[in-house]
């Protein structure tokens, strides 16, 4: 129900300075069990624990970030995402969150499959490489695109995968991943039409159907 409230609004307020977090904050049902992959310092998990009473767990590779997450009371373990998922039993979580991390994965498809093995639902948020500004940047500069969302030089970008909304939809269909909800954002605005061209960030709620 709360997710529908989000849908009706043209603007999404930010949560912890991020619009995709606001969507995730709305989607996640109270008192559920959540695993956040690449959870950073655990800000989102802390918010979900305090405001939605979720049982919050996280995986993060950076020791310094893990320390700060544990210091704020969130159960985070230091590991890379691939190894971190392997040990969990099937369907151990209600939600597995992968927020703005898919584009940095070495084995994104494997991670998506594992997410939906370990969790009943997956929440995937990623920057859309198909956004018109990215296309325009590449067309006009002739170099690797640089936009506010992709600000890095080609040689120091953490992104190794450049996927678009269309790419994700195609992969989901091919993999039999059921898209329960999709949200497209440009800044704090919701995108209604031509998401592959107009969305800066996409948020998907997926399951095995």
């Amino acid at each position, binding site marked *: 129900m709360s997710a529908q409230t989000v849908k009706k609004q043209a603007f999404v307020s930010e949560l912890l300075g991020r619009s995709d977090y606001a969507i995730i904050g709305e989607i996640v049902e109270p008192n559920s069990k959540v695993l956040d992959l690449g959870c950073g310092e655990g800000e989102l998990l802390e918010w979900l624990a305090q405001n939605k009473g979720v*049982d919050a767990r996280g995986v993060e590779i950076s*020791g310094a970030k*893990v*320390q700060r997450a*544990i210091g704020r009371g*969130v159960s985070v*373990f*230091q590991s890379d995402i691939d190894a971190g998922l392997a*040990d*969990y039993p099937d369907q151990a979580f209600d939600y597995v969150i992968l927020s703005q991390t898919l584009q940095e994965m070495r084995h994104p498809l494997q991670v998506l499959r594992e997410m939906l093995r370990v969790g009943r639902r997956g929440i995937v948020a990623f920057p859309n490489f198909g956004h018109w500004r990215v296309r325009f940047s590449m067309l006009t500069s002739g170099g690797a695109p640089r936009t506010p969302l992709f600000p890095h030089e080609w040689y120091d970008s953490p992104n190794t995968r450049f996927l678009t909304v269309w790419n994700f939809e195609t992969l989901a269909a091919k993999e039999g991943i059921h898209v329960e909800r999709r949200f497209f954002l440009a800044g704090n605005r919701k995108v209604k039409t031509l998401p592959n061209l107009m969305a800066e960030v996409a948020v998907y709620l997926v399951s095995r159907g």
Partner: protein
Amino acid sequence: MIVTANTLRFDSLSLDSGATLAPVEVTYESYGELNEAKSNAVMVLHAFSGDAHAAGISPETGQPGWWDNMIGPGKAFDTNKYFVICSNVLGGCRGTTGPGSIDPATGCPYAMSFPVITVGDMVRLQAMLLDALGIERLLAVTGGSMGGMQALEWAVAFPDRVVAAIPIASTTRHSAQQIAFNEVGRQAIMADPNWNAGDYYGKELPGRGLAVARMVGHITYMSDDSMREKFGRRLRGKEAFGFDFEVDFEVENYLRYRGSQFVGRFDANSYLYITKAMDYFDLTNGLRSLTAALEAVRARFLVISFSSDWLYPSYQSQELVRALRSRNCDVAYVELESNYGHDSFLVDVAEQSGLVRGFLASTFEKLA
């Protein structure tokens, strides 16, 4: 904060070996106040050569406790919030019954007639102490090294009595390398003629053997980096080599000093018994896997290892963390960067404090 130790006596304790120890005494210290709900008790478990004096100043020796940097008002184990208990382990030589205690059957020290003990036996005695103090459930069990093993044993043996476990620089079982170092220590003691098959009480102590054992121990507690930083190749009180076998290097002096100091405060037979208990420790305890051994566990976990700890390397902590995840247990884990080797959990506590403080606070909140 001056603290005094208390000693309780129990009629008997049945041991894993099948033997019974009767009577048995346990010496402990406590810091802070137990709250009315009795929900703020933290049991701190000491490492191999530690004792019940974990924090505060001992009136006898004037020395601070071995984890005084972690336990106290405003510290990681904040005694304004928590009631902290630490007892000397079974087999020890600092108040709790051990091989140096008097056997009531003979009126003489047990020496080698003391039964072989296990980490499980140590923990059952601690549970008896807790019963006597009227505490049903512990907010946390924690300790480094052998203290971490006891914390794990607590979580497995008494799953309903442990809300959270914080094993630090520890393992679910001793590796061949860890057993090997312990065996060198034991052999050094037993090779000392003064050891006399354990019968040395009231006579000349096996000081040479015990000192050598401690020297080896100290090497394993440090790291190549920390030794290079602390000693390098610096000479001790001389400009040139002595061309003899007196102390030349600073590191030699340090090890000799540490060794001889240890003889004054530790019983050689306790060294044998406690290291044997560590070597026997295996959380799987005959089960087919660690995951199976963790079946009953309900505690949440904070597991910490240190990057330069080669005695209890991070892979051992990670094995535990993976098994806990496969049980879908609530587990937080981080490897802290430190140059101090295995000793890090005692000396490099700034980051460790932040972790423990946050983890304990959130555990305590969830309980309320």
